[in-house]
């Protein structure tokens, strides 16, 4: 396997959150000790419930905000200090696409101008070369120069997301963070964008961090998938294998909850209890109040992400067995 392009070691990030108007402020551990490695040309899918820290992880990996602890290395080097020339050079090699294409685009500018923008900002090529590059990018996302002349409002959701993709690709990045890039799109349009992303990834040997709550889409596009729960990775492994044989009880519930045509809901694992609250993370295994298989230990000991054979790692006392590695979360 090629060396990782992106290496995340033990990053944590918490935010102060005030409860009520005069309430005391409590710390929300959005991300807590996350480590990941993404090999060149591969896609890592990040799934998990709302508030589990997926977007925060994505922002830290891109250097959009610093971690409180831990480190991100890109192409073997630590992230440069924001604002410096080294940082700008690094940033041109990594880009991000968000869920809402309309919000990411300026309604008052023709979309071709917006695709060109990163080239202008980074001063890449002559004016004529930039025009050529815009045409090439439009073609790459299967649109025409005529589409480029339009304003965002005159394009469909799927077309807008392709414009955002074209703009992200303008500086020929090596690494792309896609945060819910197809969640706002209809199924039929979603498939167009997913296919396009898969094609472009191969053609341009892109490395992707693909964030989504949609397991199907994540499996379609990812080599490796990491499952997050309340700020921590609870399971990670190769995409096909992970969804076929989830080991962590939360992953099992998640896969089982994903509805499938042709399968009746009989035998589904339905979790009891409320959705997790990031501001009040339970002691021990954060999943224990909802876990159908929890044992006494789960309420007090934090399970550590450990290899369980193959390329799979799981953080669960049941899966990793009696081998106790007592470690405090803080």
């Amino acid at each position: 396997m090629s060396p990782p392009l992106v290496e995340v070691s033990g990053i944590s990030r918490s935010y102060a959150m005030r409860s009520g108007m005069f309430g005391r402020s409590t710390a929300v551990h959005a991300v807590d000790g996350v480590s990941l490695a993404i090999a060149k040309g591969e896609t890592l899918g990040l799934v998990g419930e709302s508030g589990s820290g997926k977007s925060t992880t994505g922002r830290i990996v891109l250097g959009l905000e610093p971690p409180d602890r831990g480190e991100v290395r890109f192409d073997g080097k630590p992230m440069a200090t924001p604002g410096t020339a080294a940082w700008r050079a690094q940033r041109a090699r990594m880009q991000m696409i968000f869920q809402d294409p309309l919000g990411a685009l300026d309604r008052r500018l023709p979309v071709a101008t917006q695709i060109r923008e990163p080239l202008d900002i980074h001063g890449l090529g002559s004016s004529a070369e930039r025009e050529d590059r815009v045409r090439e990018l439009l073609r790459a996302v299967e649109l025409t120069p005529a589409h480029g002349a339009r304003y965002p409002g005159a394009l469909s959701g799927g077309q807008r997301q392709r414009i955002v993709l074209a703009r992200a690709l303008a500086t020929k990045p090596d690494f792309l963070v896609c945060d819910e890039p197809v969640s706002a799109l209809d199924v039929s349009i979603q498939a167009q964008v997913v296919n396009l992303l898969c094609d472009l990834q191969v053609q341009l040997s892109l490395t992707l961090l693909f964030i989504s709550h949609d397991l199907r889409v994540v499996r379609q596009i990812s080599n490796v998938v990491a499952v997050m729960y309340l700020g921590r990775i609870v399971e990670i492994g190769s995409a096909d294998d992970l969804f076929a044989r989830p080991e962590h009880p939360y992953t099992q519930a998640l896969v089982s909850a994903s509805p499938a045509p042709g399968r009746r809901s009989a035998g589904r694992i339905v979790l009891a209890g409320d959705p997790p609250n990031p501001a009040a993370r339970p002691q021990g295994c954060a999943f224990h109040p909802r876990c159908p298989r929890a044992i006494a230990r789960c309420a007090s000991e934090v399970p550590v992400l450990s290899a369980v054979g193959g390329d799979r790692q799981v953080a669960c006392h049941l899966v990793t067995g009696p081998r106790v590695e007592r470690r405090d979360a803080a």
Partner: protein
Amino acid sequence: MSPLVSIQGLSVAFNGVPVLRGVDIALGKGEALGLVGESGSGKSVTWLAALGLLPRHARVSGSVRLDGRELLGAPATELDRVRGGRVAMIFQDPASALNPVLTIRKQLCEALALHRDLQGEAVKAEAKRLLDLVGIPDAARRLSAYPHEFSGGQVQRIMIAMALAGNPDVLIADEPTTALDATIQAQILELLSTIRREMSMAMVLISHDLGVVAENCDRVAVMYAGRIVEQAPSNQLFADPVHPYAQGLIGALPPLDGPRRRLTAIPGTVPDPAHMPGGCAFAPRCALAEEACGLGAPSLAPIANDRTVACIRAEASRRALLGIAAE
């Protein structure tokens, strides 16, 4: 058996732009019907129109019968009794459907007073029973809480409790779980199925998620550009879709197991309601389109027991699906 709800030729236009163009739906007693289709295809408008909930500038025609009684053009007092009474609706946007400045008790009791002949303590007891039924822990105490004090999944449960207040015969659930996480979505859907069985209530489940509809409904209707294009028992629709759009929707869904395959994306986008193509509205995106498709809009025609399709090439489409060369 005559259907509980029968919609025929339902058409709606906003400012002269038709958005529903002759919708036919029949719903049996206790039946669960799924309604799927692209955003903007008219899923919500169908039921808003049926219940007289569209703004004044909407032009509505056709027929909507509940137990044989016509609802379109019925007097406002009769519609008020039907809505929230025999027919309840859970709206797409739950946050907007609860009043943020009133307690849950107040809102539930209002719904109960309106549709049920209950007084005083009986109302409060019933409100608590409903919250228990939808699985809100500590219901008695939580009744005096405000909507923002509940999680997204709990708000959706409260919406269901409100909808059940009138003991409805039909529940229209418009994307009831879209904003929720997968594991919470599974909880809510299971709750809906249990309640539906216990109360022998019919349900219309509107969703863009084919999997959700497949698992929770007996029958599915697929909408495209203001019309039903295919209607079939769930298992048959997903195993053997006939309309090219229905085939496209199912082919576009990435599999969760087995080998990965390239998704069969439907090319192009949905037509703009103001510039609807003549003939079959799907023709510009349809791989099987031929000249005749542009001549007139195909109507829903039976192709098997309890299956109808609106496609003039239904047979060719079926063969294409089975991998047999068409012609």
